[in-house]
């Protein structure tokens, strides 16, 4: 059973780098359509990973995750159009906006118990949608905001890839730190964690803000690429659903789970979406139910054969809830 730890770690690390590295040559080998598709996969992966940060690592399920993505998109667009900032500054600032929002809403809401947190995040997401539609002057109201094309597809691709790599490696890194272990403690038993001296409230806020940062950046890149955003798209619950589904499918609380879930779902979606626009959502719903009921731990922990690849049996960030 005991694989040599150092070899194992090196193997893990290299395979992760390889996996990420492949992304760098995509635009050189594939058509713009494929590049766009893979970029969207990265985006979904970012959403899934960031949702997992909260739900998988700390046990706080949020049904309003899309709000950060949407705020990132809007912040980027508004900062470019209304404030006149260059796109790169606007984009990075949108991440900060997401953080600020997360911090502000996190402090009161993270105190709530699991179910109430989930619902209040949903309520929040819907409330922001309404607010954005209402503040016509700033946000263009229901009609949305149009951006001129400011970056090429390849730039957008590489940036999305970079954000993906960063957030993924960050989670890997965190899992090895004491912060990462404290996250697990919070998830497993928050009361016990407190009794050990862990300031669980601060930990929750920190991971919440961190997850929102990357989610917002992803939204910012979306709007830079697609050049349009409106409240309906920005705060569409579908994105939250997909992030949840991908994470749960792949393995809630694991490091690679969200990515695998994204690959599986992305592939499936691509096949189904074009042909059956509404059926595919029906299947999405059925899939969530099936996975939650039958494979609650997701694909990754259930596949013994894959255990060596990045999933430490020493349970750094594994778990089921």
């Amino acid at each position, binding site marked *: 059973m005991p694989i040599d730890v150092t070899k194992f770690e090196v193997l893990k690390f290299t395979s992760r780098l390889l996996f990420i590295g492949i992304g760098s040559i995509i635009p050189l080998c594939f058509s713009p359509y494929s590049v766009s598709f893979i970029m969207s996969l990265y985006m979904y992966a970012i959403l899934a990973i960031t949702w997992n940060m909260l739900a998988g690592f700390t046990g706080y399920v949020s049904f309003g995750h899309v709000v950060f993505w949407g705020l990132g998109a809007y912040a980027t667009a508004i900062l470019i159009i209304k404030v006149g900032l260059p796109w790169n500054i606007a984009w990075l600032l949108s991440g900060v906006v997401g953080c600020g929002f997360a911090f502000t809403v996190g402090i009161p809401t993270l105190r709530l118990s699991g179910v109430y947190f989930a619902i209040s995040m949903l309520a929040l997401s819907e409330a922001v949608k309404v607010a954005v539609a209402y503040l016509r002057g700033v946000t263009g109201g229901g009609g949305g905001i149009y951006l001129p094309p400011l970056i090429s597809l390849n730039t957008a691709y590489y940036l999305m890839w970079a954000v993906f790599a960063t957030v993924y490696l960050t989670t890997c890194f965190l899992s090895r730190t*004491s912060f990462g272990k404290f996250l*697990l403690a919070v998830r*497993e038993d*928050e009361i*016990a964690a407190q*009794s050990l*001296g*862990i300031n669980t409230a601060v930990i929750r806020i920190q991971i919440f803000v961190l997850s929102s940062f990357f989610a917002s950046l992803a939204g910012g890149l979306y709007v830079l690429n697609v050049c349009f955003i409106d409240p309906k798209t920005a705060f569409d619950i579908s994105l939250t659903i997909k992030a949840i589904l991908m994470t749960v499918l792949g393995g809630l609380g694991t490091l690679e789970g969200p990515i695998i879930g994204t690959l599986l779902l992305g592939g499936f979606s691509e096949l189904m979406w074009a042909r059956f626009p509404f059926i595919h959502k029906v299947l999405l719903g059925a899939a969530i139910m099936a996975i939650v009921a039958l494979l609650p731990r997701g694909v990754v922990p259930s596949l013994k054969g894959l255990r060596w690849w990045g999933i430490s049996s*020493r349970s750094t960030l594994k778990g089921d809830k």
Partner: protein
Amino acid sequence: MTNRNPLLIVKDLTKRFGGVIANNRISLTVYERELVGIIGPNGAGKTTLFNMISGVVPKGSSRAPTNGQIIFRGVDITKKPGYKIAKLGLARTFQVVRVFENLVVWDNVLIGALARLGKGRAAEQMAEEAMAVVGLEKAKHKVVRELTLAEKKRVELARALAVRPTLLLLDEILAGMIPSEVKDMLTLIEALHQRGITIVIVEHNVEALLSLVKRLVVLDRGEKIADGPPSKVVQSQRVISAYLGEGIC
């Protein structure tokens, strides 16, 4: 000869939940290196007392006592949140064991050590030590969920020890254990006491405590009704009538 420095001073502690007075003007002083037992019939307020002292309450419950004061190591901790009190050197176990089920034993104990030290190597050493004291080295990589109750209690204890506590509160740690497990745990607790940790232990199993502690405190319906050497306490009329129907020995 006990060291007479007071480690924990509870003054006139009252805690009211809605209409129920869980703790009613309880005053208690625990000295360094003491091993104190707390007993009492169901509903006496023993766990509430622990919750008030440790500052760790179930989610939704309010932490602050209705009245009174608690001083630990010279610091007023009456209103302090649990995690701050833990950092001052107080550790506890729970009536219903609260271990990190999905993690392995090692991670459970390591988290305790990390919470205290925050860094890699020293924390690992502390965790190793705690596991050794409790006798869990062999189970290092087992997932806690797969352990027996007695083993889980040891994990919880090791985790509490990894915090290097000055004061250790044990809440019904013997509950659910068979006699051989009880005997082992009592030996362990005595060993911990010998290492200089002040221990306060709440128990239902009065018989077990009689052999362990030199001082027994009795609570009944939120009040402290006795406090002294076990032999005297069990003979007190008040204590006997409080337990009438329960059987004290």
